[in-house]
């Protein structure tokens, strides 16, 4: 038997519309290695096979890898408490040692020595109480870290839908905390009993600073900077500088020039080495004052600078705790809408079950790319079920296609007569043909 070697169908058409590096990704996912074979084996392509049952679990394992923030945030919190507690102990113990040394090196009366040593004893007692309380907090936070690990572990095929519901709730709490909708966030966490799985207490810390900044107060933000000095320095954050600049601007606004200059010498000058340009710009406001019309300086006096500081703080805060800068909701929503978006979604007959049939979701998806398919995905117009090998597509004489299941059902009910629901055409069940779609 002579077999004519035919080039693979893929070589008929140039595929250069893809960037070269996608080619690799694409080729990998092509079935049967058709892209590289040169012998075209004529085989009837089958309808897309249903996903194997294990794919659920593969998806689950993949989705758990997205939960970095879920584990990281309570861990950062825990770490922070450990460090702070340690610092207190270190500080107090060395104060006691110093106290003893000083007393030993100076001439004190007997009474003074007794008095001094008693005060050291009570200081140590106070430290002990503090330490006990600190350990309690540490243990609670360790429990929370543990609870999250257990929660991730608890996800399996049986409880998947409950687990997914809970994940949505966690994502919603995260969104509301980041948007400063604290009451609603707390209500949702409480009513769903997921307090250990969300970061309400962590955000309490942010709330203090944000509230103050919204009231045009920098003090709590500065305290926060001091508390996190070493880590902010490591990430080369200039948030403290920005706060200082704002304080300076407020002094200029109040025409408190002398104080402004003293302030600048003390708090701005140290940043000169790394941020000279900004420093100079802000110093120039002394000459222009707050009623300046010069746009370069005018903006510095605008109240939206405070909003900018709030945004800046939120970013620093998220970075410090290992959170994503965007709310999780936005990240998942964007990914989901991109994966769901097809040109058909914006047509009138988009099914209601598709989120993209709704105006609000359509608007959000507008700037996102359409999804791409490598293989046909056919949904039966009648049953809305996927047509695959088990439930193959069948063609009516007018070219309209429905699932075998739907048509069989219809034939059974109507004496083997088939009525096309979209055109009204009536035909016999025997006139249908199966279509092979790969």
């Amino acid at each position, binding site marked *: 038997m002579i077999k004519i070697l035919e080039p693979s*169908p893929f070589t008929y058409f140039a595929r250069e519309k893809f960037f070269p*590096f*996608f080619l690799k990704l694409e080729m990998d996912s092509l079935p049967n290695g058709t892209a590289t074979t040169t012998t075209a084996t*004529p085989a009837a*392509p089958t309808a897309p096979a*249903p996903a194997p049952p294990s*794919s*659920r679990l593969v998806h689950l394992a993949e989705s758990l*890898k*997205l939960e*970095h923030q879920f*584990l990281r945030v309570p861990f950062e919190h825990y770490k922070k408490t450990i460090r702070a507690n340690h610092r207190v102990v*270190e500080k107090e*113990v060395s104060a006691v040692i110093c106290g003893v040394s000083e007393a*030993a090196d100076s001439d004190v*009366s*007997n009474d003074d*020595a007794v008095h001094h040593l*008693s005060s050291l004893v009570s200081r*140590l007692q106070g430290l*002990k109480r503090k*330490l006990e309380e*600190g350990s309690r907090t540490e*243990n609670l936070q*360790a429990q929370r870290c*543990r609870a999250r*690990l257990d929660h991730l572990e608890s996800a399996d095929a049986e409880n998947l839908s409950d687990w*997914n519901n809970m*994940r*949505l709730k966690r994502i919603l709490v995260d*969104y509301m905390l980041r*948007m400063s909708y604290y*009451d*609603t966030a707390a*209500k949702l966490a409480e009513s769903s009993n997921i307090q250990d799985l969300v970061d309400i207490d962590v955000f309490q810390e942010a709330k203090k600073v944000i509230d103050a900044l919204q009231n045009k107060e920098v003090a709590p933000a500065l305290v926060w900077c001091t508390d996190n000095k070493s880590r902010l320095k490591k990430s080369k954050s200039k948030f403290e500088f920005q706060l200082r600049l704002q304080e300076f601007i407020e002094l200029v606004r109040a025409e408190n020039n002398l104080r402004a200059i003293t302030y600048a010498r003390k708090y701005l000058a140290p940043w000169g080495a790394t941020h000279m340009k900004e420093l100079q710009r802000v110093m120039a406001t002394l000459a222009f004052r707050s009623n300046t019309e010069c746009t370069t300086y005018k903006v510095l006096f605008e109240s939206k600078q405070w909003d900018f500081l709030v945004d800046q703080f939120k970013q620093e805060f998220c970075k410090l705790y290992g959170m*994503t800068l*965007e709310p999780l909701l936005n990240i998942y929503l*964007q990914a*989901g809408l991109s*994966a*769901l978006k*097809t040109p*058909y979604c914006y047509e009138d007959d988009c099914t*209601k*079950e*598709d*989120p993209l*049939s709704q105006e609000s979701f359509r*608007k959000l998806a507008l*700037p996102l790319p359409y999804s*791409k398919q*490598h293989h*046909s*995905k056919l*949904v039966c117009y009648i049953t809305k079920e996927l047509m695959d090998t088990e439930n193959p597509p069948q063609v009516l004489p007018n*070219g309209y*296609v429905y699932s075998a299941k739907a048509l069989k059902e219809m034939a059974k009910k109507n004496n083997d007569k088939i009525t096309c629901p979209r055109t009204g055409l009536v035909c016999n069940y025997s006139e249908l*043909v199966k279509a*092979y*779609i790969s």
Partner: protein
Amino acid sequence: MELDIIKDAFDRISKKQKLSSSKSQEVIDLVGLEVEQALGKFQSAHDPTSPVDQKSVLTDLKLKLNAIGPLHQLEGSQKELNLNLSKYQKLLEKFLNPDISKAYRNVDFDFHIVNQIVAVHFYRQGLFDLGDSLLNEAGEPEATALKSQFLDLHQIIEAVRVRNLEPALKWACTNREKLKQNSSNVELKLHRLQFVEILQKGTRTDALNYARAYLTPFASLHMEEIQKLMACLLWAGRLDRSPYHEMTSPTHWDNLTEELTQEFCSLLGQSYVSPLSVAIAAGVEGLPTLLKLSNVMSAKKQEWLAMKQLPVPVELGKEFQFHSIFVCPVSRDQGSEENPPMLMPCLHVLCKQSIMKLSKSSTRTFKCPYCPAEVSFAQCRQLYF
């Protein structure tokens, strides 16, 4: 994911943390003890004949404290703890994706819209307080219309839960025409449940009266069903021991609740499942692929932002397939109005452009790429999915 490894690493941390805590306690106690002992020497020495040499007591104490080296001890235990802490963080970064926002496009994502979506999501789940609270806290306008509709739904469902069908029947009656257009027979199902309920708890006459009033209008379309129900009259009061005992099953109530919700949402023009849940679930499934893609594309940030279509497929489960998408197996192009799928006489399907190419613009016959059949363009016909 290697959860076990992560868990073990965490256990080591919490062990070291407890160790470090007790070490701190120990050091404080030691220092305290020495200080108290020195203090004791002063206090016990009230005998004026042999005054304590305060200087030597204090110097002694100083030396003793130096010998304990409390700060050194504290540092030692903390160091070990720190080592474990940074190990754990590295493990998290290794086994989980430390930045899932990598594939995020910094496009305008209107948070007012998101707030409305979340509030409606709460309403449809019956969490009316939460929905109100959110809109209030966010300073968004109220979504009064949708809220009151979902309020109606939840009142109906709540009543059904306590076996009160009245609100459901009232709703079905008001919406009879629309339900008919949807070819829903939920109203009949409601009356059937009510009838069975009367048969079990009321008298035969009550049941008969109910059937005459409410079931007969359905007789023309559902004769078989009605006959069966009337036969049930024979077993009034002991239906559970009759051939029709299946009718008393509580699953009918659950199924009806589901169907009611479905029909109710459908009449509202809403989906049965919360669209927010669907979109997020799709996001969870699709994000790993998008993150891989953004890694590959990280050098081409501009192309990533400018693309109109994802360059690779993001495989989603069956439940996310809402549209028929035909992909030509030859050209890999997605079917469209200009380039529709066509059925060849051998029953294989290609897109029109591919067939045009193979047939040299329909001037000659060609061999199907999937079987030995000879095909001419004229034999092919367009398909509609």
